């Protein structure tokens, strides 16, 4: 969901940018192995949620840029809806007495 959301916000990004962006936005709270991003990206490519194209970075390096496909956008909406649902439920339970 995080990857999808990041791509939805920024459009096209390559792997490093995604990882970086997630870390910065979460204010370094979410610390995971950066590499595990890649199998996740591959899984999403397989599912057809992402499209990938090779392009050039600002430093003129070859890099693979990912962006959301329509299917991926649909999936994101679904996940967000689901997340809201769950978080509202949790929120109600945790209401101060």
């Amino acid at each position, binding site marked *: 969901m995080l990857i999808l959301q990041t791509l939805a916000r920024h459009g096209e990004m*390559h*792997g*490093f940018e995604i*990882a*970086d962006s997630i870390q910065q936005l979460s204010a370094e709270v979410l610390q995971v*192995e*950066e*590499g*595990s991003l*890649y*199998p996740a990206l*591959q*899984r999403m*490519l*397989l*599912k*057809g949620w992402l499209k990938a194209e*090779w392009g050039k*970075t600002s430093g003129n*390096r*070859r*890099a*693979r840029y990912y962006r959301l496909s329509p299917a991926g956008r649909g999936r994101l909406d679904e996940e967000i809806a689901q997340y809201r649902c769950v978080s509202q439920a949790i929120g109600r339970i945790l209401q101060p007495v």
Partner: protein
Amino acid sequence: MSIGELWRRLQHLARRDQIENEMEEEMRLHLELRASRLREEGLAATEAVYAARRRFGNVTGLREQSHDIWAFRWLERLSADVKLALRNSRKSPSFTLLAVGSLSLGLAASTAIFSFVNAIVLKTLPVQDASRLVVLRQRNETFHMENCCFSHAFFREFSVADTGLDGVLAASSNDVDVVDGDRRQAVTLELVSGNYFRMLGVRPQLGRLLDESDDRVENGSRACVISDRLWRGMFGASPGVVGRRIVLEKEPFQIVGVSPPGFEGAALHDRRDVQVSTAWAQAFYGTTRDNFRWLMLIGRLRQGVPLAEAAARIDRSGMAIERGHGLQVSDSDHFLLRDGSQGFDSRKEKLGKPVLLLLSIVGLVLFMACANLAALWLVRSLERVRESATRVALGATRWAIIRQFLTQSLLLSAASGLLAWWMAQFFVAGLLRMMDTEREALAQHVKPDPMVLGFFALAVIGSGLLFGVLPALRAWRTDPMPLVQSGSIHAAGKRAGAYRVLIAVQIAVSVALVFTAGLLAQTLKNLRSIDLGFRPQNVVQAEVDLGRLDYSEASAEEAMRNLLLRARSLPEAQSASLSNINLLTGSMAAVVVRIPGHADAKGAPPTSYFTKVSSGYFRTMGIPLRAGSDFTTQTRAGSEGEVIVNEQFARRYLEGDPLGKAFTYGGSRKVRVVGVVGTTKYRWLREDPQPILYVPAIDGAFPKSAFLQVRSTEPPERVLAQLRGLLQGTDVRLPLDRVTTLEAQLDAALAAERLLALLSTALGSLAVALAAIGLYGVLSYSTARRTREIGIRVAIGAQRGSIIGMVLGECAWMVIAGIAAGLPLAMFSGKLIQSQLYGLPAADLPATALAGCFLVLVSACAAALPAWRATRVDPVSALRYE
């Protein structure tokens, strides 16, 4: 998995290497970018690289993880297994060769024989719900046989009687020529009741089929239906065939329709290409349809009515109808229901048992081939136990090891299967040739169909699993500990005795198969040496059927007499004659004879077989004249006709001197015995001596269709040609393929027995060869494994004899166990095939023992070479090797 996903996966598979490279590049970029970021944050250059790596995680692991997402894991695993299996097979060419050789032979033979089982036993008429069809018969107490046929009057009443059947149809077949303009083709015609097609649920592919309206009035509707085969063969599949006029037996008919492809009459093993209604009995049989018993009946069992109940109701109704017709019916002349799923004239009764027997034999041989390979593989895998143990120790799952064994065995069986499918076609062709007279009936049914294909696939996969599963299980039990502890794993082999059991099983099965083959071969020999009562050597016989052609009574008689005269004047001919019965083909005629003082307990009159012969018949056939004289050309059929009887007749019915004795036969023909001849076999080879009555076919009594025999001094080939010439000279329309030597005809009568004897011998030999190879292989491996032990024994002074004894001792255990199990198995199989035997006790202890001894001998030969090799072990090199 969605379609899009599958498509992306396949794309990935196609450009796998490229994608791997891209992945690597992507990860490298990430690492570099992270490192440079860290450097900007103030880390040292080398420290930054390490930190970037730490934050990224296990690069190789992640790459594999990404790869696994895409790949067809099972496909890759399979291809790895197949590669390994191929490499293993290449590394042991002798085992691979033996496996492919024995499996493909076994698979081809079983597929070929299954084709016949399918054609003879499993297939049913291509009609609606054939499994509920029954054929009606009636027991005939007087003649000790089964009546097949009923009159049309009986059929009409029976079809509306209380029978528990959903419908009854009637049909009869007759060989005729179809004449279309100046073209002529011999076909089998079927005269059928009006409900025939409706009841069978057959629909026309062109025009219409026959119905009740065609069958109502005698000699009314001239409609006929032709088969798809005839339509294509004779009429070029022309759609304009409906309405065409053809001539059958001098009567013009009009084709009204074509039956669907595959349907060739209500007889699976017969080809009936034309159907007309029973209303035409007069045209094809010379008398009206109510006048004689000529129709066979097929009924359809009503759903929910058990066979026994239907049979009881049919018996009651049938008897009542026959008594209503004023027929004399004995209470024991029961009506019987026979399996009708193959229609009339099914070969199941005659050939079903032999082919099923062959299938079980060939199945056993295939099973043996699998056991053999399993045993050899087990022994070999003992040598490879180190490899298995290493793999297990290195973390291979047991399932991976089993999978690898099964992949190899299935690969071998699949390769053998390919070869076998090709070979099976030749086996089928060869078997068909051996079937002789049945060839035509079966040829169209033995072609591969889904059933045969299914059996074949099952046999291939089954045999692959069968011989792979034991070695796989053995490997599965591999315990890596001994290897880890001592580096040596020889001890593990000692416990693996499974291969010894497999060899013993093979020897047991071989004993049974050899014994069975011996019984069947001896049966054939016994049948061949039966005293026929006549001498078939140098006799040529032609079937002359003028009844089918447009001859009047007088002209047929004239032609027949001329033919006989010309046959007698052939240069090579010693004698020639005519008769109305073809011996030993099952054809027969029987009459009731009335002799004072002879009637059975229930008052039924005695019966006798009956043959009409011309003068010279006994000389031509080589039947000895015991008393009196042959008919002469001057014999007249007077009020008190002359007859000749055989010895059996005289012994049974005529006391004292039979010559001159008078009696009546048939209705009230008074006859006097003028001669007595030796007793011959009549219908079947296996029958007991039967009384036969010979009446003269001389003047006014020549049959329209008869068998012409010529005895010659010369080898029969030339006479065959001359006789064909004579037939052509008489009438060009006479078929020439019905001219044959009597010996060839007798051979044909023994086709099934010969087939059984030959194939069981061949398969028995194959079984023994397999057992011998298996024993040899197993002993070779085990002596090779014990080389060191033997070396030590020799070094400390063991004699040659004791070494040989050691090897033979190992072998003896398997052989003795095998034979001990084989003897009762052989006795049992002898009992099973008792109905196929002739002149032999089924459980013959000395013969069984002989089969056992044979196996002992073969085993000894197989063991000799490994034993000899064991004695040649050089102790020095054997010990130095370790």
